């Protein structure tokens, strides 16, 4: 898939996730917008996983540790053909399988997440299982930067290095915001790159909205014997001007007027992109 086609997908994913959040009247808008480019690259360019091989033990695995950004995952999985997109119209409704956090009720989702600080330990288990079987598939997880305050991440970081899990890649959605405010005001984790490096990880930083750069970093051969931490520098609320870097959009839901403005901005971005193509 060309960079342009991928960029187009990112815009469409944003339009869709905003639509379903607005219709449901609930959702984690800011963090979904900040991680959707990462999911786009993972599912469309990097991972060997699809509805066709989802029952195969050697498929690549993705565990979304920052489970609250489930709306981004839901639209990407629909696009991958795991279920018809129209099913997302039931998001958060009575008896819907599409709950406000990832569950295995939804095709394509590997593990239930939503309580922060669980993804990395699970991935250590998955990566270790693959190593024990001599399997070559890769394990990916997505962490929030506020989430890093959970001690379980650091316990798992030690285990991953100890077991030399070079089949494990963690991606940090480094948008520097959480619910209360800036991460450096709430519970600073900086310098986060040096922390993981000192824990024995191979650490690389990247612009988390640059699809080509993400592709390069995520497809690179992992450092032998080391787990990889990709620090993806992102903007919370990315793609909608009035949501970008605004704390309250963590779980803010657009009003009908805000929704129209947001969609108009994205449609504009789409036409610009299409213009460049022609």
């Amino acid at each position: 898939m060309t960079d342009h086609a991928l960029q187009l997908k990112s815009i469409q994913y944003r339009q869709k996730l905003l639509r379903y959040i607005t219709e449901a009247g609930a959702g984690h808008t800011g963090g979904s917008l900040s991680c959707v480019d990462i999911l786009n690259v993972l599912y469309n360019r990097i991972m060997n996983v699809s509805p066709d091989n989802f029952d195969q033990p050697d498929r690549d695995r993705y565990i979304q540790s920052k489970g609250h950004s489930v709306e981004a995952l839901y639209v990407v999985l629909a696009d991958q053909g795991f279920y018809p997109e129209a099913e997302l119209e039931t998001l958060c409704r009575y008896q819907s399988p599409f709950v406000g956090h990832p569950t295995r009720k939804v095709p394509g989702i590997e593990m239930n997440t939503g309580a922060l600080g669980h993804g990395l330990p699970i991935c250590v288990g998955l990566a270790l299982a693959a190593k024990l079987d001599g399997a070559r598939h890769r394990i990916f997880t997505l962490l929030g930067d506020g989430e890093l305050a959970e001690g379980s991440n650091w316990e798992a970081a030690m285990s991953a290095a100890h077991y030399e899990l070079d089949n494990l890649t963690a991606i940090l959605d480094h948008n520097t915001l959480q619910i209360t405010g800036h991460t450096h005001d709430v519970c600073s984790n900086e310098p986060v790159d040096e922390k993981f490096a000192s824990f024995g990880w191979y650490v690389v930083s990247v612009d988390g909205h640059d699809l080509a750069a993400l592709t390069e970093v995520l497809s690179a051969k992992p450092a032998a014997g080391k787990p990889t931490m990709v620090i993806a520098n992102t903007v919370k609320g990315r793609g909608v001007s009035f949501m970008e870097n605004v704390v309250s959009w963590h779980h803010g839901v657009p009003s009908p007027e805000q929704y129209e403005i947001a969609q108009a901005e994205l449609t504009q971005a789409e036409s610009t992109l299409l213009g460049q193509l022609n």
Partner: protein
Amino acid sequence: MSAPAPSLFSPAAQDVISRLGLKKGRANLEEFASTLQELAEQDRQILAVTSDSRGSGKLGPFGKALPQQIVEVGIAEQNLVGITAGLAAGEKKSFGVSPACFLTARALEQIKNDVCYSDVPATLIGISAGVSYGALGSTHHSLHDLAALRAIANITILVPADNFETREAIRAAASASHPVYVRFGKAVMFNLHTPATKFEVGKAIKLREGTDVAFIGTGETVIHCLLAAEKLSQEGIQSQVVSMHTIKPLDANAILEAGRECRAVVTVEEHSVHGGLGEACAGVLMQAGVAVPLRIVGFPDEDTVTGSQADIFRHYGVSMEGLAKTALELLENSGSLA
């Protein structure tokens, strides 16, 4: 564009609310936050400890007014409980405030050892308890917290049913010299009590007299018990309603009185049917040899249905209609429908 949030009360239940003259208060969450702030303004030893939960705990104004009395630890509930225990051991009156689901699951060992067994005067506030988080799903529900904490010695468990009970629970916690856990939700509550009502930890409050059925409810389910009792009275069935705001120590006398006075007992809680109020009441009744038909209403041992708190309540029969039906069936099946 979005669907209006379903109400916790059917139109018929809303009619009963007006018939009973119940007045709307505010969310227990808000009552908690302003009560704690009032107390903290008078007592500078009171500290709130939060885990990126200040907004969810409605403690924004507290943090602005008393910036020296709020401790933020980031998204780290184990750390939060440990720090809350340490502050209490260091002569502070500490209140650890975090969503009930994470607080009592993630940090259970810290609660057990650092708070309860070390016996420090710390208070833990479980916000948005039960299924308050609705469609956010099972990670965010706390259907286990009463069961888990009941099995740990040395902690008082309070589940207020309205703003009055919340205020009194927080005041009691602030002056307690042993561990306290208070859990409540974020829906707007109706005031259930008269100005004359007295609140005492460990003493249930009887909201209505009756000798056919006893509803023993706790927390945000109590109003539904009251509405069911009123509905049943239209059919000539007289129900007593007990607000069991203290889950531990449990008011055994009130339970035995209900079991002896009534022909059936229905317990109601926003919790798993395992290990909560219902099984506690059953234990009290059976061990005293009081054999009375009993139904435990709560959430069954299954993947909780998706929906708002209102959807989930209705789905599992925690509603005026659902509870009245359960009571009637219980009376019929036990052959004691006169």
